């Protein structure tokens, strides 16, 4: 029995940013350095705990070991049928091979972003307050095991991001924040409709007690999953059976929910036609916030798609595998081609994110263990790489005042360290073997190759394009003619170099020794594949 199983470790991790938030409220608002130290320290707590958890995670026991449940909302319902009727929403947090790596990614990226926030120039107190609230929301979303709890954490990230973009962003910050809010608002509204339909059908179950039977509409993910995969549950009985079955989730409704979830998380991911908001965010938000946005929040979309779309509706997902694959290839190629055309480095990176999220979709579309592992690996890897790249963008902008490619050049001479890290991050991004980007891409494409060869063949073109646009922009920045006014700038300070080294170390570690991650993911992915292969009602 693991030592951490005894204490509510997940809740402690979840609440630790709030503790930091409270401490920050007590500090005077003019003391920037105190506030920064407090914020970095506050992000170190969840990082340390998560690392401990990661090391401790009992790979044999799986999800059961760290589950915490607390009856959060138990709203009774008026009903003309005997017995007690309830809406039951749980405060339920849990871990599995899908959540844990993303949780660790969140902790690492948030800590490095907190260090990168040295570039924040104003209103430090509220910046770090929203920043820690954002971390709270992200951690919560990754470990929540109740649909409405997930939704609430998801919305907390939305509100916190709105402030972080709108107050501390660049010139067009307010427009970017509004667009972010509206697009993501629509996404989460669609998600909410899907969740409501799920709770009212698949969430329904009866608990026999000594007194009255309890009829419960549950938001618990475990209940929903169990009911959906149990052919005898109300949700899977036909609507016409025995005097009408209001809980039936027919074929049409299942598809409706699946498509709603696909669109909702597709906006967050973002999938091709819904991506314009994230370009604005990448361009206008402060670098520390983009690190989190690109490094974690986009992954939240993919996570939601896997957890709620693919895991709850595997049959529908498998039928639409080709759609997912094609969407993935479109993302990959569209992002790569447009990244090649951009003159603004931040936009190159934004399109590159779209492109790399395409690989995640490709991995998911493969519907085999390799592809699924590839997709997850790509999530983590891209989270680290894009966080590193935007960390560098922040340092570059601080020194040069621009991120336009034509304005930059020859920086390797004046700041060799940053340029070196930039090159390494670029190489990781284009998938050089030995760095983490390679493993994710390779596994995803290998997985898809088993099921859809032609699509894979087209997707590989995207890999070549990636190399072209990454090298084009990285080389433009580091080599070539240097502008005179840029010759005097200095290389990274220690406070900037530290997060760069940490992120780069993670990237190299994952590239050289991927089983650090794959072993943890194995259990969830394997379990999911078993679920897929097992006979299911209607499957």
């Amino acid at each position, binding site marked *: 029995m693991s030592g951490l199983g005894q204490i509510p470790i997940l809740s402690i991790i979840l609440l630790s940013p709030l503790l930091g938030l409270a401490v920050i409220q007590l500090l005077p608002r*003019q003391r920037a350095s105190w506030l920064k130290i407090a914020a970095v320290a506050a992000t170190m707590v969840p990082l340390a705990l998560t690392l401990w958890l990661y090391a401790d995670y009992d790979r044999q026991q799986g999800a059961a070991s760290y589950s915490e449940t607390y009856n959060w909302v138990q709203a009774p319902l008026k009903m003309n049928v005997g017995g007690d009727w309830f809406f039951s929403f749980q405060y339920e947090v849990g871990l599995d091979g899908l959540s844990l790596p993303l949780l660790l990614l969140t902790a690492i990226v948030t800590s490095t972003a907190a260090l990168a926030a040295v570039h924040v120039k104003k209103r430090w107190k509220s910046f770090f307050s929203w920043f820690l609230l954002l971390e709270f929301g992200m951690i919560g979303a990754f470990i929540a095991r109740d649909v409405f709890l997930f939704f609430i954490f998801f919305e907390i990230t939305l509100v916190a991001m709105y402030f972080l973009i*709108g107050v501390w962003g660049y010139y067009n910050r307010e427009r970017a924040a509004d667009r972010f809010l509206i697009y993501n608002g629509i996404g989460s509204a669609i998600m909410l409709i899907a969740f409501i339909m799920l709770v009212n059908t698949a969430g329904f179950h009866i608990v026999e007690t000594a007194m009255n039977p309890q009829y419960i509409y549950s938001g618990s993910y475990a209940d929903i999953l169990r009911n959906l995969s149990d052919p005898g549950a109300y949700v899977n009985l036909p609507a016409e059976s025995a005097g009408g079955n209001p809980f039936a989730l027919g074929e049409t409704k299942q598809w409706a929910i699946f498509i709603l979830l696909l669109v909702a998380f597709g906006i967050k991911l973002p999938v091709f036609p819904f991506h314009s908001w994230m370009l604005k965010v990448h361009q206008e938000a402060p670098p520390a916030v983009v690190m989190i946005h690109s490094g974690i929040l986009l992954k939240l979309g993919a996570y939601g798609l896997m957890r709620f779309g693919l895991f709850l509706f595997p049959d529908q997902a498998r039928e639409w595998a080709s759609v997912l694959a094609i969407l993935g290839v479109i993302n990959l190629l569209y992002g790569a081609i447009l990244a090649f055309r951009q003159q603004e480095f931040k936009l190159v990176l934004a399109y590159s994110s779209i492109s790399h999220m395409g690989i995640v979709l490709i991995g998911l579309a493969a519907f085999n263990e390799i592809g699924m592992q590839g997709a997850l690996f790509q999530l983590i890897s891209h989270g680290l790489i894009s966080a590193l790249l935007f960390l560098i963008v922040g340092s570059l902008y601080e020194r040069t005042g621009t991120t336009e490619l034509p304005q930059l050049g020859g920086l390797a001479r004046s700041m060799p360290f940053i340029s070196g890290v930039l090159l390494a991050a670029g190489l990781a991004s284009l998938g050089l073997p030995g760095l983490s980007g390679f493993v994710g891409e390779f596994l995803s494409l290998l997985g898809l190759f088993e099921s859809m060869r032609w699509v894979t063949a087209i997707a590989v073109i995207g890999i070549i394009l990636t190399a072209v646009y990454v090298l084009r922009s990285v080389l433009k920045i580091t080599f070539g003619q240097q502008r005179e006014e840029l010759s005097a700038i200095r290389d990274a300070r220690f406070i900037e170099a530290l997060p760069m080294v940490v992120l780069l170390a993670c990237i190299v570690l994952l590239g050289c020794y991927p089983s650090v991650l794959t072993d943890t993911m194995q259990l969830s992915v394997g379990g999911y594949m078993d679920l897929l292969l097992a006979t299911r009602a209607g499957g």
Partner: protein
Amino acid sequence: MPEQTLFQPLTWSDLLVMAPELALGAWFVLLVVLELLLPRKASPSWIGGLTLTGLLGAFVLVLLRMIESHGEVISLLGDSYRIDDFASLLKLVFLAATALIVLLGLGTVQQDGVIADKGEYFYLLLPAVIGAMTMASSQNLVTLYIGLELLSITSYVLVGLRRKSSLSAEAAFKYVVTGGISSAFILFGMSYLYGVTGSVQLAGINAALPGALEQYEALVYAGFLMMIVGFAIKIAAAPFHAWSLDVYQGSPTPIAAFLAVVSKGAALAVVFRLMFATALFANSDRTAVSGVSDELFFIVLLVAAASMLYGTLAALRQLNVKRLLALSGVANAGYFLVPIGIAFTVGHLNNISEFLFYLIAYLLMTIGAFAVHTAVSRAAGHDEMKGYAGMYYRSPWTAIAMILFVLSLAGLPVSAGFFGKLFILLGAERAQAYWIVVIMVLSSVISYYFYFGLIRQMFMRSSNGLSPGADSLDFDAEEGYPSRTPGSPSPLALKEAEAGQIETAAAAEQASTEAAEPEAGASPSAPVSGLADGVIRIPWPTGIVIGVCALLTLGLGIMPGPLMELIQQVFSFPLPSH
């Protein structure tokens, strides 16, 4: 059909049952006399305090009655006045809301130079709330109408209290005219119903309707439609809402809050009771007449949909906060009509608790927002959204409370409004009214844009109160950030400076228009002193209102369960008996 005698004498025991209403009435008379005796200078706060005491006393009386009757239904005066838990809970809500509004009035009325009759401002709220309580309890068309008129007529006076302001006079006039039209529609509809059923009792109408339908189907439709239109005007549901913008803008802000919460809530409660006690007449045996019932409820849903869409879409370009809150009230009227319009279905009988929970959430967030607005508009001297600019610096705690109210209004977690909407949505989905679910969610998302417009002003714009020199790097200068080294101005700094200049220009323009046309009759010293130091002064009663509303909004957003349980436990709304 047994016709009951309409007029039964009021007995002594009945007086005890009606104690809250009667006590409030007596208290009102007492205060009217007292105001004449008190010295003019001291009277407003005394009258206000005594009004508050009376309201709290009535609150306790209602509470005692609820505990004593224990879910039992008490009918008075030949079943024309009914005290059940639905009514009692609503009365508690109205009394609490009015108490908060009196507190709000205490915080604002002294500085409002336009209001001459400061005593009336408080004690007229008493007959208004008695009217609302009567409406909640009425089980008879006549009682209902009396309650309605008591509430309406006193509100007409309250709206027009700032007699010397032309906006207020206009508002009062519009309110009287539209209110009169609405009463006419309601009365006309009632007369049809009485004509075809021969009864003014809700139960009698319900029993007689199936028979009446065979002969007078068109008249039944006409009667109900007239009444729906009349009440739609009262609750400001689109397309019958146009008066509410002008009236809210012209009336004193606490009174606007009263109209938004108590008047709207009381009218909604009547619609609830009316629809469920009379129109829901054929649900047990679904015969041919059930079509009529379904269609009437469907019309309510149509009004709901129109309100939600119109309220949110029209608010997108609204820059006056009071008119914005009026439009938000239109959209919210739509949300309230959803649990009414989806009726009872096989899998869903939960309408009342959804309605009541959202009513409480709406009370907290709306009164909270109006309370913040009283302070902000006094500091700014106008009702425009610009007045919120830079509020985060001027009054951070109020700004944080306002975030909560805005989140709650927009239906975002963590707030009471989120759970209110969630419960309504869950209910509508279970009643299989998918289209209304979609419209409700859609309108919520659209509403983010203008609700967050307030946040944009509070957190992302510089306030007018800052000295001009600080404007170029507005936020930075405020918190002591050392300005950039002059040698290397980054392009960002230049762009920010540009933006700052634009904002300064806008502020200057605004200031000049203010100077040119000061609001009619506003005392010149108040707004200027608010601007000079930039800090928004919150009088302590307003502070209490904001604090209570914010804490409860947050509390219900984290833990909605206990309130939901409480509402369910005291649940004795009569289902139509067949």
